[in-house]
């Protein structure tokens, strides 16, 4: 499954995690590794969590038409192995399927691979469908799969996930024209999803285009590229040679074309929706959600919060090197105020490092409330007063607003926060260099719990701003990766999270809502966690 990389909601291109954007995609396996994917299980035809009418009868489905989909930014590359922004992932879902996919309830299901099974805990066998063709007419088979993996893992291609996956794979073997056997270096709970998420590009196209794969598409998906006018529109058209046309009673794919339009300004995107110049608005700001909901002819959708915003606290630098100071900070902040001021009551305050869509999420854990008195007590126990701390954050929303809310609540406890907004590249540098005491950050959805904890808290992670280095924490994470039983892993991740709660190198702030809107004429358009926008069965009602 593609890496999670939801972007910032602002103009910055950097593939930072945002959590106002809806189509977040995740990495990592669902903990049902032990299962064999059987047969041709179709993805469920469930509609998105709220708002959409139920699936219509086959006789009602109208084929044809053009769906106009607006996102906040343009894609930067069409290379299926390199693209990782959520906008790219959204389109790639329709153009470049991979071996495996996810169902609506985040179970790993077959896609190009009709079967997947572990012979033993380090040997994965993928059996592929026959009769699959790429957009350029060439055949998809096990040889093509090997070519794709070779390219994805090649350091020269510099894919975002390549280096990490390469570490885990010992060998890839073509058994016959429909079967590939992959041997892992060691058991790894996240390997199935990473492997299953490598997108398949036509080897002929790889050879033909070379670097120009960034501007050309030859996948096996239901839609192929017609044209890309950067910053203006990207048009996909129906691929008549799509292998899975028999998925539903009525022909799939159903649209004639899918037009992706970048519209950077949120209010302009809504103006377009209102005037029916677009069919789907991929991102709605919390402040606009109520007014969009009340518009006639428009369906506004609020998805379960799947991303999380957090603040890192530098444990290596005085005064935050003192545990009591960090505890004071954690007690002083007001999460509910963030919800009201920044998210207009949508989403939920965070009490856990895991987001609500993950199986590790502790649904019954109470949200910590602001406790100014407790914070002050901790500070005097630590023997400090009139603290002045530097907070670094990207110079965009929602970080700016969250920083202001935090500054206010920390001020009540006697802590002065100096807000330092940084341009996105500078912010990355600051994270790496541990510049400052506090850092605001966000992470998008992950299907495996490991994804929520390894990137920023492991001692050897480049972006470990806090400088956290805890033996018990590292051991729990390493052990959990080797296991497949969910109950056993749960115990370990609970241990890991407890270390974070005890040592406070981080504070969990909020789980923002995923908001999007569409016209009521759009049918069977779905956003599926870890896949992106699914539009192969989407059709447009007339009138």
């Amino acid at each position, binding site marked *: 499954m593609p890496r999670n990389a939801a972007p910032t909601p602002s103009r910055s291109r950097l593939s930072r995690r945002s959590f106002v954007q809806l189509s977040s995609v995740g990495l990592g396996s669902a903990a049902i590794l032990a299962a064999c994917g059987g047969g041709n299980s179709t993805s469920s035809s469930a509609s998105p969590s709220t708002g959409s009418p139920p699936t219509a009868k086959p006789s009602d489905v109208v084929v044809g038409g053009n769906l106009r989909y607006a996102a906040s930014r343009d894609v930067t590359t069409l290379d299926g192995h390199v693209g990782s922004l959520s906008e790219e992932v959204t389109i790639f879902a329709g153009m470049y399927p991979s071996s495996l996919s996810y169902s609506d309830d985040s179970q790993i299901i077959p896609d190009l691979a009709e079967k997947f099974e572990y012979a033993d805990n380090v040997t994965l066998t993928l059996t592929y469908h026959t009769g699959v063709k790429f957009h350029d007419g060439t055949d998809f088979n096990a040889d093509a799969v090997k070519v794709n993996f070779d390219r994805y893992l090649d350091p020269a291609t510099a894919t975002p996930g390549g280096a990490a996956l390469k570490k885990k794979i010992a060998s890839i073997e073509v058994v016959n024209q429909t079967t590939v056997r992959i041997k892992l270096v060691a058991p790894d709970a996240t390997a199935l999803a990473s492997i299953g998420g490598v997108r398949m590009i036509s080897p002929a196209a790889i050879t033909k285009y070379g670097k120009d794969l960034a501007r050309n598409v030859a996948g096996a998906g239901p839609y192929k590229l017609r044209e890309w006018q950067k910053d203006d529109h990207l048009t996909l058209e129906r691929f008549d040679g799509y292998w899975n046309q028999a998925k539903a009673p009525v022909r799939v794919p159903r649209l004639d074309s899918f037009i992706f339009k970048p519209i950077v300004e949120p209010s302009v995107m809504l103006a377009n929706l209102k005037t029916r110049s677009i069919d789907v608005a991929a991102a709605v700001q919390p402040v606009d959600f109520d007014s969009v909901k009340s518009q006639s002819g428009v369906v506004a959708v609020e998805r379960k919060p799947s991303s999380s915003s957090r603040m890192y606290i530098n444990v290596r630098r005085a005064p935050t090197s003192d545990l009591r100071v960090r505890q004071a900070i954690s007690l002083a902040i007001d999460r509910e105020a963030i919800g009201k001021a920044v998210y207009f009551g949508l989403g939920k305050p965070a009490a856990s490092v895991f987001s609500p869509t993950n199986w590790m999420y502790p649904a019954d854990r109470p949200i910590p409330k602001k406790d100014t008195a407790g914070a002050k007590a901790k500070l005097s126990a630590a023997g400090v007063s009139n603290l002045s701390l530097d907070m670094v954050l990207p110079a965009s929303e929602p970080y700016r607003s969250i920083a202001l809310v935090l500054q206010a609540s920390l001020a009540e406890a006697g802590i002065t926060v100096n807000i330092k907004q940084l341009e996105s*590249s500078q912010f990355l540098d600051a994270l790496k260099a541990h510049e400052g005491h506090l850092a605001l950050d966000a992470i998008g959805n992950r299907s495996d719990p490991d994804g929520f904890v390894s990137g920023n808290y492991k001692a050897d992670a480049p972006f470990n701003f806090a400088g956290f280095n805890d033996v018990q924490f590292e051991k729990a994470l390493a052990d959990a990766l080797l296991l497949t039983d969910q109950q056993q892993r749960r115990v370990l991740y609970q241990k890991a999270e407890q270390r974070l709660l005890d040592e406070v190198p981080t504070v969990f702030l909020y789980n923002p809502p995923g908001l999007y809107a569409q016209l009521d004429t759009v049918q069977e358009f779905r956003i599926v966690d870890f896949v992106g926008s699914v539009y192969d069965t989407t059709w447009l009602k007339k009138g």
Partner: protein
Amino acid sequence: MTEYIIRRFFMMIPVLLIVTGVLFMLREATPGDPASVAIGQETELNKAEYKATLDNLRAKYDLDKPLALQYGLWVGRAAIGDLGNSYRSNQPVREAISERLPVTLELGGLSLLLSWIIAVPAGVIAARNRNNVRDLGANFVGLLGLSVPNIWMAFILIYFFAVKLQWLPPSGWVRFSDDPLGNLRSVILPVITLGTSGAAVIMRLTRSSLLEVISQDYMRTARAKGLRERAILWRHGMRNALIPITTVVGLELGGLIGGAFIVEQIFSLPGMGKLAVDAIYARDYPIVQGVLLMSTVTYLLANFAVDISYGLLDPRIRYD
């Protein structure tokens, strides 16, 4: 005159070299680089692997070579028209620029035209009716255009004309070659936004310049000769007043490239401004340099044209 033209042309080259050279050096001073932007923060790698991935990517972009060599290579290729390829999409920079240039030129050109259409008559009215109601009125309109932020103007226009009245599309660009009428409809609101703010400066300048000319002796002579007021104004007055105005226009023409970024962003117009700003954030150096080169050349050419036009407007000015 020919000698002057040739001399001016050759003087452009050192300017271009200095400008692009300084930009190259600025890379070192600016935090971040294309590789770390491309990899971003989504990494499961440990520190050593992260560094290795960064190094691979930098090698892919030729960033591991010495800066002077990189610059030399760039200049050499640019001289024969090869501006390199975008790091992100591998699109040739020349192609990226030539795709967006028509948009920016049309937007900028029409905005400038609108500025003129508003400003010059307003300035003339103001100058001729100095200090009475018409002057005040013209000044007010001019100042309004100057003070109202582009962003606010853009949103107000979209709200009224696109959302409420639905006369025009809220955003987006239609190519002239695809649909001339659609193109015009998509460009009206952005041009109004840009044109009204540009108008104020030209209006004030027209007014003051004309006021100065009107008080000259030769104007009195012309009137004494019995010429019609209109002939006096346009043949004698404006022709002289135009000189400072032309200077300003030259500067504004130069600023066309990349100058309309905010309007392009709001109206989703695929222009040079947005190309440049996105490339800067992504540290897509080939694109940034290509746009800077384009922008500098435009400034130089515009000012060159302005200097030549002085000779046409004022016979006293000669370039030999």
